[in-house]
């Protein structure tokens, strides 16, 4: 077997942000289902949370190439 362990590591590291993004959108859908009029406020917050969680995955992909 040949290849780069970095890529396996990145795959493992992406689990965390993946779970996080799932939780964020689950909470967003829950919130909108309970209170549809709050959709605009919630959407901004959800996208912000998504962006912050995704930042971890981005740092991971940068490190996978650099290291």
């Amino acid at each position, binding site marked *: 077997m040949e290849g*780069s362990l970095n890529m396996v590591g990145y795959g493992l590291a992406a689990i965390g942000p993946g779970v996080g993004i799932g939780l964020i959108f689950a909470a967003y859908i829950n919130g909108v289902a309970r209170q549809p009029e709050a959709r605009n406020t919630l959407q901004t917050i959800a996208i912000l949370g998504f962006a912050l969680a995704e930042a971890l995955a981005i740092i991971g992909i940068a490190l996978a190439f650099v290291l």
Partner: protein
Amino acid sequence: MTAASPLNAGRQALAAEGFTPPGPELFNLPPIFGGSLLFAKPALLLVVGAVLVFGFFYATSRKMAMVPSKAQYAGEQAYSFVRNGIARDVIGSRDFMKFVPLLLAMFSFILINNLFGVVPFIQFPSFSRASFAYGLAALVWILYNGVGIWKHGLFGYLKHQTIPAGVNGPILILIVPLEFASNILVRPVTLSLRLFANMFAGHILLVLFTLGGEYLLLEAGNVAYAPVGVLALLLAVAISFLEILVQVLQAYVFTLLTAMYVQGALAEEH
């Protein structure tokens, strides 16, 4: 971006079997004029993108009428999406008008440059070259820090960004460096890398599925592989649609985060 040597070794091992998976070298395109690497396809696409954005808004706003034509309606929809959906909702109704032109230009420019990634015969998202994304993020960094310093003064702004409301005591020793790193240093990095990495990964994924499908179908020399090749090509089409979603979302997220950073810098003391 430097490719790590284990990556290359792996690729060469695969190349010995006949198929070379696409890698970061995919993004090194030859220069268009002469030998200057400064002006290759990505830079040309940026210019074309800027011209298209200008052309779209010029054409749709040239003959403004009380009863809008179809073109004017399209332009107004794009404008009001950014003005109301991003700028007013995030920055707040007092200060947002000053930032609408920048946010609108930024959103349309990023959107069109991302969409180049799925337009036939162009098929290159220009922001998959990291340096362009760095440039945009530098612009945003200067903007929100400048706005904050203009509003609060230099020391007021630093205090505003590094000390969250209601925090005092020894915990500040821990909080201040963390908040400084998170609000001043890391923001432009994640902002640019998010856009770049999404475009980069999306483009590699598309190329991988297309080339791999073509290889399995035509060049592998084994009939049993052909159905898998067809499947890979169908998946490439499906991934193109996913990519369109990602490209629109990234343009939206970039603009939204710019607006949020500006709002954070402008916010009143609590």
